Structure formats: structure tokens, C-alpha cells
């Protein structure tokens, strides 16, 4: 891509200076705070270098947050990815449906988690439309409990996460040249074999990527865990613990340690998933020279 307009025998290419402000900004406002936080986490207000981490793993309302968060993020991600693959595959051909569905699905993403939480409180609440409808048809007696508990947060993770995963996987599926499936068909592959032999192996890298991004988002769930969940109980997720340490106890050192742990757990899962996909083939998704 890079074709120099005028080559110089020596000296710096002035075009490269254009990238400097952006790089500098990222170093100062993204990398530096991260490193600062990492250092800070090892310089606790009291105790040795590892005191914050020891405190995290020995305090009863801190260390279980990892499990609590995983218990929300894992099912949410699996459901979202599991639903998105067949639906996106169904819509892989360009059609008016595809355009409409993608446009509608982008709405919950842009509205964001806070608005979804407020909507869910009204709609899924014990006196909301859903509860009333179920009672009206005698499908479920008594008020349903879908807010201020585990299920409320899980549903909100699906509402905000599914469109994201779906659109991501759809863009991977539409990136696979449909002529490959046609070639398979002329060689005797029925529709199921076309999916299994052609689409599935070529999709694996994309699915792994979508899984990672969706998981990382779900793992850092914050506003919906507070607004829709039980933030002192079953949905006390790790980001709540970090927020409380920083802005309620003003222990920035502990807060940084929790943030680092949060990033670390995400990193482990991402590394695992991306490592798994290396077992499979990753390569071009178009046939021939492309």
C-alpha cells in the first residue's frame, strides 16, 4: 500500500510526523495510567508490596467477586454466541431482511446499558407488562422476579450483548465467499455438509474473536449489575468492588489492584480462546489467489 510519493536518499519522511500526536496521546492517557495503576497496586497504603493482592484474596466481600462475575459473563457470552451463529448464518445472503434486522439490532447497542436497565425495570418489573401478560394468560402465577437479582443482570447482558455478537459474526460470515459453498454443492455436499465442511472451519477464527470481545464486555459489567441486580449480594461483580475501593473508600491503590486483576482474568480467558483457535486453520476466506 505504501508508495512513497517522493523518495529521499536520507533523512526522515515528514509524513511520519503526522502519527506522532496520536501516539503521544495514547502513551500519556492510556499506557501511562495503566502502568501507573500497576505500580500503584504494588505500593499499598499499608503492608508489603503484595498487600493489596493478599487483601483481595482474603477479604470475604472481594475475592468471590471473580466467581460472581464469571457466573454472569460465561453464560451470557455462550448464549449470545450460540444464538448469533445460526441466526447470522440464516441471514448470510444480502436481502431487505438483513438490512432491517441489522438496523433494528443496532438500536439497543447505541442506547447503552443504562437505558436498557431503566427500560427493564419498567418492563420486566413485578408490575410490568411482561408480568401482567403472563398472569393474564395464567402462564405464571404471582409476580415474576426478573429484576434486582441475577436474572435481571443476565437478561440485560443478553439484550446489550447479543446484537453486538450477531453483527460481528454476520460481518465474518458475509466475508466468506459464497462461491465456496457453491463449489462444494457441485461436488455433492448437501446444505448441512456445506455448513460443516466450508463455513464452520472458516468461521472459527471469527467466532473466537467475537467470543473474546463479548466475554470481555460482559466481564466488565457495571451499570446494569448495580441498577438491575443485587449489588451487595448475588451480582456483586468485580467492577463494583473496584469502584467502591476507589470512590467510596478512596483506596486508589487497592482499586488499581482490583482493576489489574480484572484485566488479568480477561487476559487469561482471551489468551485461552485465541490459543484454542490456533489449533484450527486461520487464513484467507476467499477461494484461490484472491
Amino acid at each position, binding site marked *: 500500500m505504501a508508495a512513497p510519493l517522493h523518495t529521499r536518499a536520507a533523512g526522515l519522511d515528514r509524513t511520519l*510526523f503526522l502519527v506522532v500526536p496520536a501516539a503521544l496521546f495514547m502513551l500519556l492517557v492510556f499506557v501511562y495510567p495503566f502502568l501507573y495503576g500497576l505500580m500503584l497496586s504494588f505500593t499499598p497504603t499499608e503492608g508489603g508490596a503484595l498487600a493489596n493482592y493478599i487483601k483481595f484474596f482474603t477479604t470475604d466481600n472481594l475475592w468471590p467477586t471473580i466467581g460472581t462475575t464469571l457466573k454472569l459473563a460465561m453464560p451470557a457470552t455462550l448464549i449470545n454466541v450460540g444464538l448469533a451463529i445460526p441466526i447470522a448464518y440464516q441471514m448470510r445472503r444480502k436481502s431487505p431482511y438483513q438490512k432491517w434486522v441489522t438496523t433494528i439490532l443496532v438500536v439497543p447497542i447505541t442506547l447503552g446499558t443504562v437505558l436498557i436497565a431503566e427500560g427493564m425495570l419498567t418492563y420486566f418489573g413485578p408490575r410490568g407488562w411482561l408480568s401482567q401478560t403472563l398472569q393474564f394468560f395464567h402462564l405464571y402465577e404471582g409476580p415474576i422476579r426478573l429484576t434486582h437479582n441475577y436474572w435481571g443482570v443476565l437478561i440485560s447482558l443478553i439484550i446489550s450483548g447479543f446484537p453486538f455478537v450477531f453483527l460481528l459474526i454476520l460481518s465474518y460470515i458475509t466475508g466468506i465467499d459464497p462461491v465456496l459453498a457453491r463449489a462444494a454443492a457441485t461436488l455433492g455436499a448437501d446444505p448441512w455438509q456445506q455448513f460443516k465442511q466450508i463455513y464452520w472451519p472458516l468461521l472459527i477464527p471469527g467466532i473466537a474473536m467475537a467470543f473474546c470481545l463479548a466475554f470481555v464486555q460482559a466481564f466488565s459489567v457495571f*451499570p446494569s449489575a448495580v441498577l438491575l441486580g443485587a449489588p451487595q449480594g448475588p451480582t456483586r461483580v468485580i467492577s463494583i468492588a473496584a*469502584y467502591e475501593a476507589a470512590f467510596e473508600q478512596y483506596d486508589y491503590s487497592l482499586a488499581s489492584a482490583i482493576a489489574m486483576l480484572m484485566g488479568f482474568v480477561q487476559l487469561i480467558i482471551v489468551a485461552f480462546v485465541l490459543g484454542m483457535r490456533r489449533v484450527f486453520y486461520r487464513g484467507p476466506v476467499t477461494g484461490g489467489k484472491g
Partner: protein
Amino acid sequence: MNTNLLARAARGLIWGVMTLFLANIFLMIAAVTTSSIARRWLGTFLPDGYTFQWYLDAWKEFQLGAVLWVTAEVVVAVVGLSLLIGVPAAYALARRDFIGKRWLMLLFLLPLMVPPITYGIPLATVFYKLHLGGTIYGVILSNMVPALPFVILVMTPFIEQIDPNLESAARVFGASTRKMFWHVLTPLLAPGILAAALLVLVRTIAMFELTFLTAGPDSQTLVVALYYAVFAAGVRAPQSIDAMAMVYMVITLIWLLIALQFVNPTQLVSRVKEQPQGA
């Protein structure tokens, strides 16, 4: 045939799930809308009567005027600064190969892959140390962390597909760098810049975590104000909160509709699209 029946059942199920999902989202929005104009709504299917009183209440109680002004300031500053720094960087990345380019790309990619709350907490810590925390400058700077890479990732492939020979041609015909930039490059880049600006705008209005962590009482954007209103629910009438949610939703949806005139819906989400690796 057996397989045919199975395929049809699967297709029906898929459409069913999709319809159910979309219907529930639609009803959720409808519930908020109804509540915001309900005089009184307690356990019945529809409210007793309708009023726009709650919007006036929300305007006064939540100081929506001030909040909207702050939101506008933040969004304009974030979009403007991100474009100013991001477009030239994207140009350099699209046109030149240099040592360390892969690392630089990684640096621009990371803030989009790491969730905001993970890096937001150390970032807020640093900002409070520097007395930037709680000010509108802190909010703008922190919102630029995902916005700037987003501009770069949208613009780089856009610039790559513009034929570099056009620039060479302009130079051969005697245009200086500045003239070349204004007369050749800017008009060609305009559609890409517009798309990037709209995408960043929509995402900044909806960005909760970073603003929440760095904003003070008088530097809250609309979405953070909405969070505090929902958080402190019980103090105020739920209809008033829903009225505020409606204001937020309408603003976001208007900009989303404008954005969708110029960009593909998938562009709002698929921030990281893997380049197929050529063999």
C-alpha cells in the same frame, strides 16, 4: 423429505427467537414511553391518564438544561479533537510502512478491545492526582481514549483505498503539500471523515463508564445523570426518570438515524475486523 423438514423447523425456530427478541426490545421502549407520559401507573395494564408534566419536572429536578449543555460541549470537543489528531495519523499509517508500525497499530487497537472500566479506574486515579478528575477536561480527555483509535481504525482503510497516484498527479501538476491537501485530499476524505465523526458522536453520547469515573457534579453528561437518577430511584417519581430516559433516547436515536444515512449499521459495532491474512 426428512432433512428438508428439519431445516424448515430450524429456520422457523430461528425466526421465532429473533422476533421474540426484537418484540421484547420494542415493548421495553414502549413501556418507558408510556410511563413517561402516565399521570399515574400502578399495577394496571395502561395508566389512568396522560400528561407531559413529568418532562417539565425532569427538566427542573435534574437540571437537564445544564446537563445537555455539558453533553454537547463534551461531544463536540471529543469529535473535533479526535478528528484533528486521528485523521493525520490514519493518513501516515495508510501511506507509509515503517518499523514499529505493527506495535503502533496494537497501541491503537487495545483501547477498543479492553473494556473502559478496566482502564478507566487507573485513568481516573491519575486524573484525580492531577486535579483533572471531576472537571470537564478530564471527561473530554478520557472519552478520547476510545474515540481517537476509533477514528484511526475507520479512516486508515478508507485512505488506503484512495489511489496514491491522485496525490502524485496533483504534485506533478504543481500543487504544494498544503494545496494538495485542501484541493485533492480533503474532498476525497470528506465522506470518511463524516462517517467517523458520526460514529464517534453516537458512541460518545452513549459512553457511560469513562464519563462516570471522571465526571464531577457539574461535568456530568446525560447518560451519567440518567444513571444517578435511576440509582437514586425512590426519591423521585419513576415517571420523571422515564421522562429523562426518553430525552436521552430521543437524542441518541436522532443521531443514530442521521449516522445510518452515511454508515453501515455493522460499522457501529464491528470495531475490530480482522484482516484476512493473504497467503
